[in-house]
């Protein structure tokens, strides 16, 4: 049997950071990822932060990867504006929360996980190789056997011969199978989770710059609350990426179970909002139906010709509206000048309209639909994130920060990963992998993390910034519901005492008061209606059906389902018929049945199913993530 020092299970941003950090410490580690390539199963909102906290040291992404991170990593845009919008129909009231976004922050970049994790993987693999380790993708871990005598673990997979390791880092996400196999924790409950659904919308780079008044490579985050939530607790977001927008909806799973609605309708509600409509609009070629009376070969030829022209037009347009890319085209000698690119673009457009009857309309282009569960660290972080020689990090340990408009996950996972790697490195040096020396050490390191503190307590300085930003909101809207709270928060001294008291009460008792329909739905709607500006839309977006969205995704089909329905008649499963983001469940003769082919592995159904990740290389292959 082959032997290695450390196995990291899961190639998301946390697992990759663990691999890189172990290599930085000159330790041998192998990372095993089920997806056919790194990043193919990762989804995020998402913004990646780097923090400087008063509460202690944070291990940031640039500490792990070095200066090269800011120079070369495929980051989308540096978020320089952070705005919260309250919506009600065509009314929008906006509060600038940039100061809250900047709080204790070195930077925050919008990111797309597929690209970014691939870059992390390149960096980590190169370092790991030097110490006899590396990354192995397309491999699904199915079993871990602990060898009491040798104090090691035997890792079994669906694809490879088993191997032995001294320690394991479980970075296999919110639906961690390792947590289940090892019995380290129970599955997260709906009350501890959020469900996020996102679409990536394509828009050329320069158009984004102009539309959002951004300098090159700068970005903005727009958050939404109010009627876009369709009466659920949570909200929506629009983040600018380099040449795409991430439009998403994130809702408390409990609230979805209480009032089930198809997850995509929550994203659709966002897309239909007049402000967002104007954010996402673009010039879109629309095909006409090909004359069915033509000979079949001719129909096919026309179809292929149009596909090819539209493809060329899209590619060229993307370059034309991006300074970097258009300069590249000219520099490569393919075009003499920028004007020539424009001419070519116009000529393709003319060919499409004149020859093939294609019309250009104002609409939007959706590139990818995705979904994921997000752990609410306030409610579900593991108190001791280890089991024997297995250390849990990031989502797998239930560690995400949800505090009002503050949503962080990637940076938390990276911080955990560094702590796990450091703990294991120390254990390797002393050849001591006992719970006391490894697990407890890691656990206390995580406990000291500022992020853990943020999951446990209200940060009064952050709250002050938030309250200051919303000072223009008339008090009577809020005071009807939160008069006592408001009074307590109105002066600095009382606020400080009140927060201390609140923190003694603890999040468990506070949260039901704060995270309520009032906060996320009713108050924002009232604010929008009373104070909001009217925003009108100039077109009606053609929103694809869920079937069209699934058809656009790339799957590596597996004939064996990776999910087994255990309780086909349970209330929960019946709600899944509505709540599965890709409609994998249907009801037949009062039994819930599964068709797993369109499954995007979000884990929404995992509570009452036998839920596994797909076998190696199988299942969803995201292109953006």
């Amino acid at each position, binding site marked *: 049997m*082959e032997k290695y020092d450390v196995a990291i299970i899961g190639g998301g941003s946390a697992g990759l950071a663990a691999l890189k950090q172990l290599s930085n410490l000159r330790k041998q580690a*192998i990372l095993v990822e089920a997806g056919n390539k790194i990043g193919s199963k990762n989804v995020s909102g998402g913004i990646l932060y780097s923090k400087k906290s008063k509460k202690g040291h944070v291990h940031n992404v640039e500490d792990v990867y070095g200066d090269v991170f800011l120079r070369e990593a495929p980051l989308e845009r540096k978020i320089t504006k952070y705005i919260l919008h309250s919506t009600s129909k065509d009314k929008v009231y906006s509060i600038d929360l940039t100061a809250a976004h900047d709080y204790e922050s070195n930077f925050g970049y919008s990111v797309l996980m597929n690209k970014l994790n691939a870059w992390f993987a390149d960096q980590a693999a190169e370092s790991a190789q030097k110490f006899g380790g*590396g990354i*192995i993708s397309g*491999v699904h871990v199915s079993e871990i056997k602990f060898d009491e005598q040798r104090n090691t673990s035997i890792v079994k997979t669906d694809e*490879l*011969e088993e191997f032995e390791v001294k320690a394991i880092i479980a970075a296999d996400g919110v639906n961690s199978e390792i947590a289940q196999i090892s019995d380290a924790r129970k599955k997260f409950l709906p009350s501890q989770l959020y469900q996020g659904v996102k679409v990536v919308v394509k828009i050329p780079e320069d158009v984004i710059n102009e539309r959002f008044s951004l300098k090159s490579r700068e970005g903005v985050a727009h958050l939404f609350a109010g009627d876009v939530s369709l009466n659920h607790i949570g909200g929506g977001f629009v983040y600018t990426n380099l040449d795409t927008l991430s439009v998403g909806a994130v809702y408390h799973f409990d609230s979805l179970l209480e009032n089930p609605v198809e997850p995509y309708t929550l994203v659709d509600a966002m897309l239909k909002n007049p402000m967002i409509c104007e954010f996402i609009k673009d010039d879109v070629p629309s095909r006409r139906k090909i004359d069915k009376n033509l000979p079949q*070969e001719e129909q096919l*030829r026309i179809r292929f*010709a149009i596909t090819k022209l539209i493809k060329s037009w899209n590619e060229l347009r993307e370059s034309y509206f991006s300074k970097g890319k258009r300069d590249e085209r000219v520099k490569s000698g393919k075009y003499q000048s920028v004007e020539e690119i424009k001419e070519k673009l116009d000529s393709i457009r003319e060919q499409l309209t004149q020859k093939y009857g294609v019309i250009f309309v104002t609409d939007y282009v959706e590139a990818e639909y995705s979904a994921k569960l997000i752990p609410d660290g306030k409610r579900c972080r593991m108190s001791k994130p280890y089991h024997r020689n297995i250390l849990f990090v990031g989502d797998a340990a239930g560690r995400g920060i949800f505090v009002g408009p503050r949503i962080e996950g990637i940076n938390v996972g990276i911080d955990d990963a560094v702590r796990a790697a450091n703990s294991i490195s120390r254990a390797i040096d002393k050849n001591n992998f006992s719970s006391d020396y490894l697990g407890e050490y890691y656990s206390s390191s995580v406990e000291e993390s500022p992020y853990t503190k943020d999951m446990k307590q209200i940060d009064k300085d952050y709250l002050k910034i938030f309250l200051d930003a919303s000072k223009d909101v008339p008090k009577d809207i809020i005071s009807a519901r939160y008069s006592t709270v408001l009074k307590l928060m109105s002066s600095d001294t009382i606020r400080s005492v009140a927060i201390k008291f609140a923190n003694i009460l603890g999040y468990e008792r506070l949260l039901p008061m704060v995270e309520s329909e009032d906060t996320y739905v009713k108050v924002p709607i009232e604010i929008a209606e009373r104070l909001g500006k009217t925003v009108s839309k100039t077109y009606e977006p053609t929103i694809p059906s869920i079937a069209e969205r699934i058809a656009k995704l790339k799957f590596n089909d597996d004939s064996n389902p990776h999910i087994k329905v255990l309780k086909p008649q349970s209330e929960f499963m019946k709600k899944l018929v509505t709540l599965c983001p890709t409609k994998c469940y249907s009801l037949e003769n009062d039994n819930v049945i599964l068709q797993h082919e369109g499954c995007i592995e979000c884990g929404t159904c995992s509570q009452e199913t036998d839920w596994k990740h797909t076998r190696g290389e199988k299942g969803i292959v995201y292109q953006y993530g």
Partner: protein
Amino acid sequence: MSELNVAVIIKLEPDFSEGSVSYNPDGTLNRAETKNTLGPHSTIAAHAAFYAKVMYNARISIGTMGPPIAESALQMAQRLSDAEELHLYSDRIFAGADTLATAEVLKTGIEKMQGKMDIVFSGHRASDGETGQTGPQTAWKLGFTFLGNVIDYKIDIQNRTITAKRLVRLQGFSDVVEEIEAPLPVFISIDPSYKPLFNTISQRLAFGKFQKEAKIRAENYKQYLKVFNVQQLGVDPKYVGLPGSPTIVYKVERIPRGKATRQAEVLDGSNPEHIRKAVSKMKEALAAMVIK
């Protein structure tokens, strides 16, 4: 020095995927407008060679005959196989070659590659010619043992032998896998269903390492590339190109569509009424089946 030398012969072929391919109004392929790519079977042959790289640290060479643009196929194949040597046999005189004349060029080229070849891989057939003859003819000219439809192989470096599994399709029988042993050198035409398997962590790590090396090499492919014209290759012009080709394609006809014996009915998937009809038809068909 490597203990195993492997060559791959490949072909640049039209990319038949939607968005790349163009057809003339008469239904024939518009070659000028259609993008080219490494042929799908050549891709599999490159994978098979890469298996030898990962498992036996083989030295890989790739050869192709074609116009100058065919160097893009060599680059693509290098990206897949981590080859250290790329040969392009390119000369106007080679134009119009049939499979036999092509085999003559390839055979001469393979003999010019560095080291004595132990295995030569080819794809099963080309997607534009579909004859499947170039491989076997090259093998015959080289005097190598020919192994067709290979789906797996292992090499005994010390004894210089290969054990290969061949997928044999016999009419009236289900597929049979034949395992054979042969002394090196051999010529392998790889089966379309071939998929290399790497079962241990160390093999996967080697796979990753060489894949990365291949990526870097392919980015600088020109430094591995040698282009040969008829003189440089040293082939007799009588045996190559049009003069060396005993077969000439003088006409391509469309296969006439056979008369349908089934009663087909076209249903529109967006019409709920039609869907109901389809379901009832399926139920009908299922009811008629006897399931044991």
